[in-house]
Structure formats: structure tokens, C-alpha cells
């Protein structure tokens, strides 16, 4: 992210300002000067600044804190043919995101300060938005020894995770939750018991039986979440559960929160939008881990979002090329991209009445920022001018050929949706506009 060469001033007139950090939902003007939020009020008189301020009529639009996706795979270093920091962050700002957390399962793995620094350097020069590296829990994601959390934190890592793989060894998970507290790092869990999910290709149930694909039972996720909740209680470490997909997981997390355990959780749009019936045609675009589940699970995920059990919506953006995806279902890679579709899918929940506009924005900006302890996700006066303008009524059909991402593995291609980011400001600089 280059320092602001075009960081003039912006005045957004007459928009619906949604700022979950202060529970604000009202019509107002927003003034941005020198990369900061300068003022928010109705009928702002901007006096002397008006000369150099660009005026944008935001009537009918939402003005929200820049969205933050806390679960993204950028693939750089190592798999640049799938995505790069440049292409991934370009996709992010097109989707309304001003900050993204990138997972460490690159090649080489982000398990040492040098890789974290490399990612941040690349992001500085080639990135369109802020990048927050998540480092590995264990060296080389092997689940044997802790990575060097102190050096990683000092290099700029904001959390640790072995995402893509579970931490099988309970003692290692205990140590990670303990040691991470030394450096105030969040521990993000990919919750899966591989002995229960082993060889599974999709949700276990009626459809897996019918089409003869090995199933992954809900319990494969829930067993691990239950373990990690107990370990979080034991250690007092900050635990975040990634990509929650089952009704039972929502139940476990809800009850843990009510007992005061320090846990937060996210789900991804595909877990509240897609069900396993879609796999009947064997299209690997629907193959993802954890797998898309049943309608009953979808209903529970929505309840979890509504009552706050699930704090964040994150895309788990996982780019793959045709080399990994154009194969027999069994051999195709897990994962789907989501940076450019998360927002319209979250807005479907708003129109369904599952969550309010303010809740949706909280789960995609303020909450992930709070979980990661980064000073964004707010429109407070003086805060960095990371903000997103959303047209909630814009109707269009999702077309992967228009994506900024290098990959096309998106199950929502062809879906008619409503609402998208039309302007994204990062640090007061116009990073995207349509």
C-alpha cells in the first residue's frame, strides 16, 4: 500500500452511516481529510476545505467502516499462479474490504519473521489494502513444535493458526494457547478431528449416502471445538474458531460464551448460503473443508449470527486454479474464493431479516478488528479513513470473469444478487470505485 499520493479530501453527502463501533445508524455526511475521518454530521459545513474536497453524493448508499476479512488465503509466497498479494488485495477492495488477514499455509509456510516481513513488504508495494499476516501455530504446520511467536509478533503477525490443518496434539494446542498470551496473540483454530473426517469428501448424510461420496460427520468439527473450548478455559488463552459449519458447533460455542470462556467465532457465507444437495452433480466448485452442510445446519448458523454466538463473517477465500479443480470430485482441492461475493451474500441475510444492517457491518468490520486487536473497523473521528460505500440496492449477476482474483473457483457464478461495494477508501486513498 503506497503512501497517499491522492489523499485529498472527500465529502460523502447524505449517506446512511452505519458505525457499529458506536452503534450509529443514521443519515449524515462524512468528511475525510488527510487520511483521517474528520467529521460526521448531518448537513456538514466544510467551509475552507470545500475547494479541495471531492464531493460524493451518497444518497441511498451506506457509508460503513472499511470491511475486514479475517480469513483469506493469498497464496503468496509459493502459489502465485493461484493468487498474489497484488491480485488478492485487488479482489479485496473490489469486495469492499480495506483489511484482510492472510493465513500462513503458503510455501514456505509463514512460520518465521522473515516470511511475515516478506508478506508485509509485498503488501506495502503491491497491495491495494491492509494485510494482517497470521503466522503458524506450529513450525511448518507440522503440529510438533511451536513457531517463534515473539519474533512473529514483532515482525507484524497478529494471530497464529495452522489453518487448513487441525492441531491434532492436545498438548501442543494447550501450549499454543498459553504461549500466545505472552505476546497477546490470538489463536485461530481449524477445528477438525482427522480420524473422524479422514477420507471424507462432503457432509455426511442423506446426500453423501445417495451419491456415494464419503461423508464428514458434524462431530468431526464439534469434537475438536469442544476440546479447544476446554483448553481455552484451562489456559485463559484467546481462542477464535474459524469457519464454523455445524449446528452442534454453534451450540458448543454459545454455551462456552455463556460460561465466560474467552472465545470468538466466525462463519463463511457458503455455510449460511449453500447446502450439500448441490453436490449431487459432482461439481468440485462445491468442494470445501469444512464441507457445506445441511439445511438444519444453515438454520443454526443463521441463529448463531443473529444472537452473536458467531462474531464474524469471513470468506475463507481459497483460490485454486483449474489444475486443482478440474478433476474428479474425489481428487479436486478443497476451497472456494469469496472476497468479491461475501458482502452481497451477507446482505441476503439482512434482507431475509436474519441480521440488521448494523449487525452485518459489525460482523464484517468492527468485530473482526476487535478480535484481532487492530485499530480499524470504526468511523470514529480521527480514525484512519478506511471506509466502504455500499449500494445496497444494486442488482447484478455474479460473474467470475469480472473478478480481480486470479482464480475462478466460485460457486456463486451466475447468482443474481443485490448490493455491492461501489467505493473503497483505504487510509484516505481511493482504492476502488465503480
Amino acid at each position: 500500500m503506497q503512501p497517499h499520493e491522492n489523499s485529498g479530501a472527500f465529502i460523502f453527502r447524505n449517506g446512511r452511516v452505519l458505525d457499529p463501533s458506536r452503534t450509529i445508524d443514521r443519515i449524515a455526511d462524512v468528511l475525510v481529510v488527510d487520511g483521517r475521518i474528520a467529521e460526521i454530521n448531518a448537513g456538514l459545513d466544510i467551509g475552507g476545505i470545500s475547494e479541495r474536497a471531492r464531493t460524493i453524493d451518497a444518497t441511498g448508499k451506506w457509508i460503513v467502516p472499511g470491511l475486514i476479512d479475517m480469513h483469506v488465503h493469498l497464496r503468496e509466497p509459493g502459489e502465485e499462479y493461484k493468487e498474489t498479494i497484488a491480485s488478492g488485495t485487488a479482489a479485496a477492495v473490489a469486495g469492499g474490504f480495506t483489511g484482510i488477514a492472510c493465513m500462513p499455509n503458503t510455501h514456505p509456510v509463514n512460520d518465521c519473521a522473515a516470511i511475515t516481513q516478506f508478506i508485509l513488504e509485498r503488501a506495502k508495494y503491491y497491495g491495494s489494502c491492509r494485510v494482517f499476516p497470521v503466522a503458524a501455530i506450529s513450525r511448518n504446520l507440522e503440529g510438533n513444535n511451536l513457531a517463534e511467536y515473539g519474533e512473529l509478533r514483532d515482525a507484524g503477525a497478529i494471530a497464529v493458526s495452522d489453518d487448513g490443518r487441525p492441531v491434532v496434539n492436545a498438548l501442543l494446542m494447550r501450549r499454543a494457547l498459553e504461549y500466545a498470551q505472552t505476546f497477546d496473540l490470538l489463536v485461530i483454530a481449524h477445528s477438525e478431528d482427522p480420524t473422524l473426517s479422514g477420507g471424507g469428501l462432503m457432509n455426511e448424510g442423506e446426500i453423501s449416502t445417495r451419491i456415494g461420496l464419503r461423508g464428514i460427520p458434524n462431530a468431526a468439527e464439534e469434537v475438536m471445538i469442544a476440546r479447544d473450548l476446554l483448553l481455552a478455559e484451562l489456559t485463559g488463552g484467546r481462542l477464535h474458531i474459524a469457519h464454523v459449519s455445524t449446528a452442534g458447533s454453534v451450540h458448543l460455542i454459545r454455551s462456552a460464551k455463556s460460561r465466560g470462556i474467552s472465545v470468538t467465532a466466525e462463519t463463511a457465507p457458503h455455510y449460511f448460503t449453500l447446502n450439500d444437495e448441490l453436490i449431487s452433480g459432482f461439481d468440485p466448485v462445491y468442494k470445501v473443508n469444512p464441507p457445506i452442510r445441511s439445511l438444519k445446519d444453515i438454520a443454526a448458523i443463521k441463529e448463531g449470527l443473529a444472537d452473536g454466538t458467531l462474531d464474524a463473517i469471513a470468506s475463507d477465500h481459497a483460490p485454486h486454479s483449474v489444475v486443482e479443480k478440474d478433476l474428479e470430485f474425489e481428487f479436486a482441492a478443497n476451497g472456494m474464493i469469496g472476497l468479491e461475493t461475501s458482502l452481497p451474500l451477507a446482505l441476503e441475510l439482512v434482507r431475509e431479516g436474519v441480521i440488521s444492517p448494523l449487525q452485518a457491518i459489525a460482523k464484517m468490520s468492527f468485530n473482526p478488528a476487535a478480535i484481532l486487536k487492530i485499530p480499524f473497523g470504526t468511523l470514529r473521528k480521527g480514525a484512519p479513513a478506511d471506509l466502504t460505500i455500499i449500494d445496497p440496492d444494486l442488482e447484478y449477476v455474479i460473474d467470475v470473469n469480472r473478478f480481480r482474483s486470479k482464480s475462478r473457483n466460485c460457486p456463486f457464478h451466475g447468482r443474481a444478487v443485490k448490493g455491492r461495494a461501489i467505493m473503497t477508501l483505504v487510509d484516505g486513498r481511493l482504492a476502488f470505485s465503480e
Partner: protein
Amino acid sequence: MGFNRKDLLGIRDLEVSEIEHILELAQSLKEINMRAIKKVPTLRGKTVIHLFYEPSTRTRTSFDIAAKRLSADTYSIAGSTSSMVKGETLLDTLKNLEAMRPDVFVVRHSASGAPHMLARNTDASVINAGDGMHEHPSQALLDMLTIIEHKKRLDGLNVVIVGDIFHSRVARSNIWGLNKMGAKVTVCGPTTLIPPKIETMGAQVSYKLDQCLADADVIMVLRLQKERQQQMLLPSLREYSTYFGISPQKLAKTRPDVLIMHPGPINRGVEISPEVADGPYSVILDQVTNGVAVRMALLYLLAQR
């Protein structure tokens, strides 16, 4: 009604009238296999490629004989000799073979859905000769033909499928087909080998072999692969055989006209005792004979398209 599909991928997709049409045609073609000169010119000039990514003796030979008796030219590509070992993807293999203008691909693959992916990507016809744990439609059709020959009907019959239902494409195709044709299907085996929610496919579930054998008109015995012990699905083949193996003692209380079927290959002494496999109720070799006729019918219907 005839049969106007490009592909035959599964029994679940078929209408009752289509199943009837295939079975009637198979019955009429069966006579060719009894002649001294077992060949007709029907598919002369047509090209059939057998694409077998999983070991198979019976099914591949059966399809090959069926195609040759109809005068089609056939080519076999087996898993071990195929370019797949060189790292070529299934779709690339398909595109290369398609460039040689075949009319029909007969596909066997260990991955469920592989024939479906091929069918979407070629103008040639695709016959699913068994995909993973999903479907094996020609097997279900030959099973139905065999039952009809002995029982003169399918409607109202009690069919019990015994054994490893979980991993069986034969069971799945038969559940669909027999249900469509009015038979009542019960699946029976240890809980670990019965897949979840199988009843939603239209099968009743029983864990008590004696109870379901009493009313059975047909008993389909499935092969039990020996690896199932290593997968913690069974404690031992001995215990399996004791409770679910079909022995003369277990048949003592069955109907006198019960049919014993098995899709092969048989593990003698595990899921079926030699006395039963070779005994008076067994129609196992009739199944193999009918397999050629059913596959002739399928190749005829698809290649003539």
C-alpha cells in the same frame, strides 16, 4: 416409450418405461448369444472405448463381448496402462480419445461421479460401468433381468441385500431400480456397513438377518472386502461370516423358491458359503450370462442414437 438419452449414468435418473424398454430389448438380444455364429452387424462402424480406471474382469469382458457381438470396434484402456500414471488428467485423456471420434465410452472409475464429469465434457455417449460407491447401472439391470426370468415379475417381491451396503454401488443401483419396479428392498448388515439415512433412498434397514430372510424372494449377497477390518468397520471376517454370511443353515427357514444372487467376485466362505454359491437357489452364473445381453441392449440404444 423408447430411450433417447446420450448417456447411461445411473438407475436413479431412469423412468420405469426406460427400464422396461432396456430389459425387453435385452431379452430379445439374448438369443444372439446362443447362436453358433454369435455376431450381428448392428453396430458395424461404431467405436466403443472401454476406459477402466479400476480393476475389473467380469464387467470389462462382458461389455467387450457385448460390443463385439454387435460388430462394434472396441478398444480397452486399463488403469495401469493408461496415461493417468504419467500425470495426465482424466479430462485430458478424454479430450485426446474424443479426438479419435469414438461413439461410446464405457467408464469404470474408483471416484464417484467420474463418468458424470466425462459425460458433461464429451459429445460421445458415456456408460457408467461402476463409479466409486455411487452407481453400477448395468449390474442392476442385469440383476433385474435375472429376477424377472425366474420370478416373471419384480412388482411385489421382497428383495434383501446383505452385506457391505456402505461401499456398494451395486446396492445403490439396485435400491433405485427395484423400488421403481415395485419391489420392496431391505438392506441388512452390521451397522458399520449400513450408510446413514439409507432409508431415504427407499430401503428398509435390518440388522437381523434371520428376520429378513424368512420373507425374502431374492437374496442379493454383496462382496465383503477384506480391508474392511483395517478400517475398524469389523472385528473379524469370522464374526462377519457367523452373523451375515449366507450358509445352508441360514437358508433353512427361507422360502423354497428363494433366489441367491451375487454380483461377484465371490469371497467363498466369507459372505457366502460354497454350498450356497453352487447350490440349487443360486442364479449367480445366470447373472453373468444376462450381463452380456443387458450390455448389448445399452450399447445398441446409445450407439444408435
